[in-house]
């Protein structure tokens, strides 16, 4: 169990975060410069916060009140750096054994062999890091970090330098890692899809603060505010007013557009008729439809980019193209009707995919 409550002031930036991780994977999501990496460095002891405390399994790693700040070497924390930071002058085997040299020789030998086969390169122990592929290097960095059985494993944008195919493979491997590594895992990413896939809990960072920290489903399906919604991929956000509430349905009238949209939410009791709210939808949930069902909006196609499997289309709710709300939609290539800019069409916004939040 890792408990963090820290504050660090820098010129023009303040990091102030508090969270805890208990035998789970926490993914920290945020734009670059929001303090994600700084948090990891503070936990690892490579950066000293100004105030607060950090505790790992009951041991104090940092406590400003008691003037305790253990150096990195005494914290027993695994760190996988964004650029892997392997020791280029040591072999793969020596890299993995670097953190466990206090063990008896026999044990070091066994452990490195075990880790080498775990990362699928049992025969490459004698090679140097630059003789491996980037995916293999990444796995060596992971093996090196977990070799000393750290209390918590920190991963800083671990897959950002890999291509999509390798990324998927490694994500799978990271998840299977939990069979051999039982401590807490925190990893930092700016990629929502990855954060969702790998984490069980998600913390959304903005300008040095946590705006939402919750189970991943909760973060993705009920973001707490506009900026979290944006960050988790809800690109279309418009202001509206609640007109009717029934069971788990909320009807929202969109300002300046003649449309009333039905939203399905389990938290309908939180809202009141007349309340000003924001509703949003992900581009991939917007559909083009033919008939006038409920939750449809008439729009004009403004522009689109054709993709291999998905077309990125932008619609405007105002038919003459001036003003109005812009709605971005990702339409699968097979579902894309023959349309060109200026055409009018109807968009269906499924009530189960609409997200409602307080203004």
């Amino acid at each position, binding site marked *: 169990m890792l408990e963090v409550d820290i504050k660090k002031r820098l010129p023009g930036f303040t990091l102030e975060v508090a969270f805890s991780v208990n035998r789970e994977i926490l993914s920290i999501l945020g734009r670059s410069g929001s303090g994600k990496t700084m948090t990891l460095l503070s936990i*690892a*002891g*490579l950066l000293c916060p100004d105030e607060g405390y950090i505790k790992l399994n009951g041991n104090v790693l940092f406590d400003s009140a008691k003037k305790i700040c253990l*150096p*990195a*070497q*005494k*914290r*027993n*924390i*695994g*760190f996988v*750096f*964004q*650029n892997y*930071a*392997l*020791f*280029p*002058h040591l072999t793969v085997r020596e890299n993995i054994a*670097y*953190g466990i040299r*206090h063990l008896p020789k026999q044990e070091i030998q066994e452990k490195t062999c075990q880790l080498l086969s775990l990362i699928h390169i049992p025969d490459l122990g004698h090679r140097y890091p*630059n003789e491996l592929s980037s995916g293999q290097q990444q796995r060596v960095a992971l093996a*090196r*970090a977990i070799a*000393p059985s750290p209390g918590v494993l920190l991963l800083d944008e671990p897959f950002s330098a890999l291509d999509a195919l390798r990324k998927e493979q490694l994500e799978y491997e990271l998840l299977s890692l939990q069979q051999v590594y039982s401590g807490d895992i925190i990893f930092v990413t700016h990629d929502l899809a990855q954060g969702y896939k790998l984490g069980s809990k998600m913390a959304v960072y903005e300008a040095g603060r946590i705006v939402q920290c919750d189970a991943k489903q909760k973060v993705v399906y009920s973001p707490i505010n506009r900026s979290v919604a944006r960050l988790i991929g809800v690109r279309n956000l418009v202001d509206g007013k609640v007109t009717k509430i029934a069971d788990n349905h909320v009807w929202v009238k969109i300002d300046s557009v003649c449309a009333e949209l039905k939203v399905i939410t389990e938290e309908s009791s939180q809202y009141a008729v007349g309340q000003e709210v924001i509703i949003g939808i992900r581009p991939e949930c917007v559909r083009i439809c033919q008939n006038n069902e409920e939750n449809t909006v008439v729009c004009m196609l403004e522009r689109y980019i054709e993709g291999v499997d998905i077309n990125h289309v932008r619609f405007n709710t105002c038919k003459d193209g001036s003003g109005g709300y812009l709605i971005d939609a990702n339409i699968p290539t097979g579902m894309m009707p023959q349309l060109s800019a200026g055409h009018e069409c109807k968009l269906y916004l499924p009530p189960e995919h609409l997200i409602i939040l307080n203004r």
Partner: protein
Amino acid sequence: MAESILPPLLISLKTVLATTAITFFAGIAAARWMARYSGRFKNLIDSLFILPLVLPPTVVGFGLLLLLGRNSPIGGLLDALGTSIVFSWPATVIAAAVMSFPLMYMTARGGFEQVDINIENAARTLGANEWRVFWTVTMPLAWPSIVSATILALARCLGEFGATLMLAGNIPGKTATIPVAIYFNIQGGHYDQAMILAAIVLVISLASLTILAYYKQKVRKAARN
């Protein structure tokens, strides 16, 4: 002939070895400290370390003379102990050390700064203390620069003239290094002896720099693979 060639050669070699040993450790210590130091006076300290490189050697020698001479506190203390540094063999070492320090410092510092701080940090998170990080990570990674630094400092020591003459003087068989001996040989019209000494310096310096160039090429090739 040999009696006028051999003493300066031996003095120079002795001075070069002693000085390089001192500069090696002092330069590395200063470089390592400055490479990660970010205090207020960073630039000032850095400039002070490099200053002997741009000052006229006579000015450095003059400064050392004032600092260590008989009328200075240090000189006075040594005098009370019945000894003195000025115009003795150690003076050649001090003068050469001060003059070669900037090259050692600058080159080594460049090497340390190029070491990815994440790699050092990785070692720290793996339980290595600062000492182990330095010897198992920082030094091996900065090694090519350290080698360059040492060879450049060594060559600079061998060629040191102005500050040495000011502080150590020209005492044949005691403080007259090769460059000093060359100067006084030419003054005295002994061109043949000057020529031999000059040739020796030329060969050693050229050989050092060529070895360094080959070494650098090898390192670059290894890094590419």
